[in-house]
């Protein structure tokens, strides 16, 4: 695969309007910037918070905590089959409605005074209703949150009125994965953690491949690249979202257990050793396609499995993170074994990605480093921060990451 432009600034040639200068580090430490992003970014954009299959039947629900917005959201499938999102707040005196993380219910009932809501959020029963004043139950249903579904992924928007529909928000990116069979991969394994670092330290761990030979030096030891070709196979930048394809590692030699697992089930070894795949912009021999849906969600697709990263700020210096891997439902013991092998390898590789997060935050806190320098292959990161600046500007704040741009 040879680039059509000089190999050391090929992405800048592809996207000449992007900055090349250093990025300011101070905003990553700023409480003010965190507060602004809380509203301008998390308060207004579509956020992916789960998959429709988490609520397969009428009455199924799960509760999603969104610490950055101090919001708790109930996702529930109602009697008509529709999936709804509501603030987890009783309309009476603001008690938290659903205390379990997930379950199945016939109605949503508040433990405090017995107010009971139907699955569609309408207020069905109020004990002592006659003692309220000018009270119409129809006006006191659960507070609805905008919810839309793309390819089975549930997105919510906390704005009173979203600026765009989800389809508009995803734009061209939304059709990019049109052929990918998400529905086929319903076996989900998930890991979560809370890190002592800013949310963007976490996003940045997953949007460049520069770290691969170092962070993954022991797990992907034969992921060899000619340095002059760079690490990404291809990059496509949308106004807010981004796709970055990793080339396959044809030289990868599966370890003994990896090879045994691969006999029974798709796994990372198969994917990164580059089966010819059908998805993505450059359809030949890429290992996997990383896809960032702004602001905080990654959906990385491979042949036979996909995984996601979900990143939610808790505070300026703390972040909640969840990683999910999706495989086809295993039918035989061999498939279960193959998936276990792949799952553990991915989990161990993930621990490598997470290894730098808190160290980076700690090193940044003193403010010694003023400028972050980014190379051409870190273009997806650069794009992320330019998008954040554009988002701030749209909300009448100053750009902070590339103030000179």
């Amino acid at each position, binding site marked *: 695969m040879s680039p059509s432009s000089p190999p050391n600034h090929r992405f800048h040639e592809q996207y000449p309007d992007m900055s090349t200068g250093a990025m300011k580090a101070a905003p990553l430490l700023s409480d003010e910037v965190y507060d602004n992003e809380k509203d301008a970014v998390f308060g207004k954009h579509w956020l992916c918070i789960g998959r429709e299959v988490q609520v397969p039947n009428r009455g199924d629900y799960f509760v999603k905590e969104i610490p950055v917005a101090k919001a708790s959201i109930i996702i529930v499938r109602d009697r008509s089959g529709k999936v709804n999102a509501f603030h987890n707040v009783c309309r009476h005196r603001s008690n938290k409605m659903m205390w379990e993380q997930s379950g199945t219910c016939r109605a949503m009932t508040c433990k405090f005074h017995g107010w009971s809501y139907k699955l569609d959020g309408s207020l069905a029963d109020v004990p002592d209703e006659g003692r309220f004043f000018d009270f119409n139950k129809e006006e006191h249903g659960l507070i609805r949150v905008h919810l839309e579904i793309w390819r089975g992924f549930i997105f919510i928007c906390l704005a009173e009125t979203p600026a765009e529909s989800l389809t508009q928000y995803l734009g061209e990116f939304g059709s990019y994965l049109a052929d990918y069979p998400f529905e086929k991969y319903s076996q989900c394994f998930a*890991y979560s953690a809370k890190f002592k670092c800013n949310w963007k330290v976490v996003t940045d761990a997953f949007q460049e491949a520069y770290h691969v030979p170092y962070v993954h030096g022991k797990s992907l030891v034969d992921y060899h690249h000619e340095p002059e070709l760079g690490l990404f196979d291809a990059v496509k930048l949308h106004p807010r979202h981004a796709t970055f394809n990793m080339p396959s590692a044809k030289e990868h030699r599966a370890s003994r257990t990896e090879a045994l697992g691969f006999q029974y089930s798709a796994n990372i070894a198969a994917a990164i050793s580059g089966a010819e795949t059908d998805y993505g912009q450059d359809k030949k021999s890429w290992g996997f396609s990383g896809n960032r849906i702004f602001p905080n969600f990654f959906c990385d697709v491979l042949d036979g499995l996909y995984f996601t990263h979900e990143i939610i700020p808790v505070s300026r210096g703390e972040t909640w993170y969840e990683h999910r891997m999706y495989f086809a439902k295993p039918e035989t013991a061999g498939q279960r074994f193959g998936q276990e092998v792949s799952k553990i390898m991915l989990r161990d590789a993930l621990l490598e990605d997470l*290894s730098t997060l808190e160290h980076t935050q700690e090193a940044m806190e003193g403010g010694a480093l003023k400028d972050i320098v980014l190379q051409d292959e870190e273009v997806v990161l650069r794009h992320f921060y330019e998008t954040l600046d554009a988002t701030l500007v749209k909300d009448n704040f100053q750009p902070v990451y590339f103030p000179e741009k």
Partner: protein
Amino acid sequence: MTKTLPTGFTELEPFIELWALSTESERLTQRLASTLDELRVYYDVISELAPRALDHLQSFGSEELPENETTLLELLFSLAEIAPAIEMFNSVVEEGVYDPRKITIVHEQMRV
């Protein structure tokens, strides 16, 4: 109740107590509680038997496995858990990585 294995896998009987564990968090805990040498002792036996064990288990197709066969599968899951330590890192847990004990294994805690 003591777990048992199907006929033909007596070599694995000494390992049932430590490694026939039904959840990922138990298997991870056991990995972290072991020395590399202890992992190697198990790895050497199970990795040798694994192809035959899998062949045997595949004869059940997609049927639910009887208990003693599940025990065999759990021992294979433990192979999956310890294999990176032996095959990649030469260390129980790779040096310098994020502490796996701080990760919540969500799929064993709730319906995902």
